[in-house]
């Protein structure tokens, strides 16, 4: 790959084959590549240990075969896809892989990995379901354990100064991603949802410094970026299960609408878009700071947010507590309608759907619920549904 490529060009190039690029980097720098599958593992720790955090994706175009041998259909197709790829050796290039107990399916997926995939060595990160002080203490303990595992794997320890430095870099990254999303507040947005996902999946495959550089270049180029949309169109938010391939976004945006903001794992949730201050404190007990922020800021419904242990319960207040940030998204990004997306067999999002819908109805924002499989071939049938939804937003 030509070295002088920058910004969008660079993104397009790397996007074609992130694995090749990251291997190249390992070759040059000798930094080990550690894969991670969800937004909970603090990347600061991986960066501090001088490894390359590499976000592992499924593959919507690879038919699940091996995976179906070991995981029944009640496990969501995304996790089956990851396990399938693992069994087929797609992740052999990794020096380590972090599963997490982010949800049931992910947990079970990790277990199956333990029992039938030898490479790469992996760790399963345990995560509490609540955010009580005691829960945060436990999560901190868990992170120490994880740090220990990582250092053992690498055969070297890292200092708190390294961690401090890493935190600063990732704080910077979260800030830059916020600015990337600001481009989408324009009407028409300066970049499409599809591009956003491409950019983010590229920086999630690179060392944080690289990623930050790319983000800065992209932000500069964005203004005169060629393929930037000219036509106005319905402004949508997509909420829900993981989306790590543009396939679905393309189907939406081909219909003349734009996904201007999202509440999904790979994109906004990974970078705490909802938070006014996405900075982890670099003073005091750093591991504790990480534990606290990661446990609370990752807006995944697997976490029990909202009131438990209160004597008086009130549904409206509960919704406000849990989904208030969606209201900000809607006003900041001028959202016309919301697509609620839950993969089939995704419990944490499945149970959330009716409640998010209630909340959006309260706000008077139209929404549509879709429930695809993690498989590009099952997406085209959604076209009609999406088009019809856009028509309900229009004056037809």
């Amino acid at each position, binding site marked *: 790959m030509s070295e002088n490529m920058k910004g969008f060009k660079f993104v397009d190039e790397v996007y074609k084959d992130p694995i090749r690029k990251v291997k190249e980097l390992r070759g040059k720098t000798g930094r080990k590549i550690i894969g991670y599958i969800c937004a909970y593992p603090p990347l600061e720790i991986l960066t501090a240990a001088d490894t390359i955090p590499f976000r592992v994706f499924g593959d919507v175009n690879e038919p699940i*075969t091996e995976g*179906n*041998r070991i995981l029944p*259909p009640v496990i969501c197709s995304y996790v089956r896809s990851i396990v399938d790829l693992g069994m087929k050796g797609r992740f052999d290039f990794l020096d380590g892989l972090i599963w997490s107990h982010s949800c049931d399916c992910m947990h079970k997926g990790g277990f199956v990995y333990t029992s039938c995939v030898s490479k790469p060595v992996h760790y399963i990160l345990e995560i509490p379901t609540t955010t009580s002080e005691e829960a945060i203490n436990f999560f901190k303990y868990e992170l120490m354990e994880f740090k220990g595992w990582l250092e053992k794997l690498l055969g070297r320890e890292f200092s708190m100064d390294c961690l401090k430095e890493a935190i600063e870099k990732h704080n910077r990254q979260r800030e830059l991603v916020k600015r990337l999303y600001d481009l989408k507040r324009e009407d028409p947005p300066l970049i499409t949802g599809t591009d956003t996902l491409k950019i983010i999946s590229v920086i999630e495959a690179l060392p944080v410094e690289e990623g930050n550089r790319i983000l800065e270049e992209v932000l500069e180029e964005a203004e005169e970026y060629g393929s930037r949309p000219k036509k106005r169109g319905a402004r949508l938010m997509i909420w829900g299960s993981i989306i790590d391939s543009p396939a679905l976004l393309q189907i939406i945006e081909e219909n003349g609408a734009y996904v201007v903001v999202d509440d999904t794992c790979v994109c906004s949730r990974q970078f705490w878009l909802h938070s006014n201050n996405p900075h982890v404190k670099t003073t005091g007990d750093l591991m504790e700071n990480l534990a606290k922020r990661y446990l609370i800021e990752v807006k995944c419904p697997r976490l029990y947010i909202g009131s438990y242990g209160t004597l008086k319960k009130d549904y409206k207040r509960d919704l406000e507590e849990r989904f208030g940030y969606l209201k900000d998204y809607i006003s900041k990004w001028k959202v016309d309608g919301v697509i609620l997306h839950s993969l089939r067999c995704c419990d944490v999002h499945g149970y959330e759907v009716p409640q998010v819908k209630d909340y959006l109805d309260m706000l008077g924002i139209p929404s549509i619920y879709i429930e695809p499989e993690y*498989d590009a071939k099952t997406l085209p049938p959604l076209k009609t549904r999406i088009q019809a939804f856009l028509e309900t937003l229009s004056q037809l």
Partner: protein
Amino acid sequence: MGISGQTFFIGIDIGVSASKGVIIGWGEEIIAYHILPSGFSYRLAAQRLLSELLNKAGLTVEDLSYIVATGQGSPSVDFVHERVTDIVCSARGINKLFPSVRTVIDVGEQTSRVLHVDEGGRVTNFIISEKCAGGSGYILRVLANVLRVGLDDLGLLSINSKNPIKFTTRCAVFIETEIISMIAEGFQKEDIVAGIHDSLAEKIIELINRIGLKEPCAIIGGCAHDIGFIRSLKQKLGREIIIPPQPQIVTAFGAAIIGKKSFSKS
């Protein structure tokens, strides 16, 4: 009137789409066999099958020492001595024809099966596809229907395909819509058929993988005639697959053999 003094055994395999029957003699040699569509009533199908068989063999019911029924529809058959699981019948049948075979693949209209057989014709492991017609042979019937070609023509079409289309095996009925729109979009029939063959083969291989493949391996049932499907299955499996001369009647044949054994025991 048949050759008096001899004993004959009959096995009938009443399936959802086709009913097959075999008459064997004391030497387990096939005297006659017959295949007919099951129509809308298992009972009637079984009766018609019986009389057809007797005609072909020139026998009467009196000549029959023992009748064994198997297959989806067997519970609806009233005139039998014994009902036996189709899995067991398939195992016995294939073992008589090809004693060396260790894995049998049977792609049925509703469900598909894969079984392991030992040298004695006993089932040593098996697996049956889940209750969704996603990966069943029915999909081929649908395909033939939409393309307005015979089931038997599918094979020839697909082996001429240069680049098969990738399908995901969803509901067989849905695939129909998918196929229709593909034709509309101007895709080649050949590629569509080949695509369906591939996706069906993939589904079957998933099934095989769950219990493993022991060689040599044979395929029975209607789909065994479909050279396109077989080719795709062989490719994906990377193995040779034995196809019996009359793949559809293997299970019925096995039933007949079981009948003979039960008879000689009593």
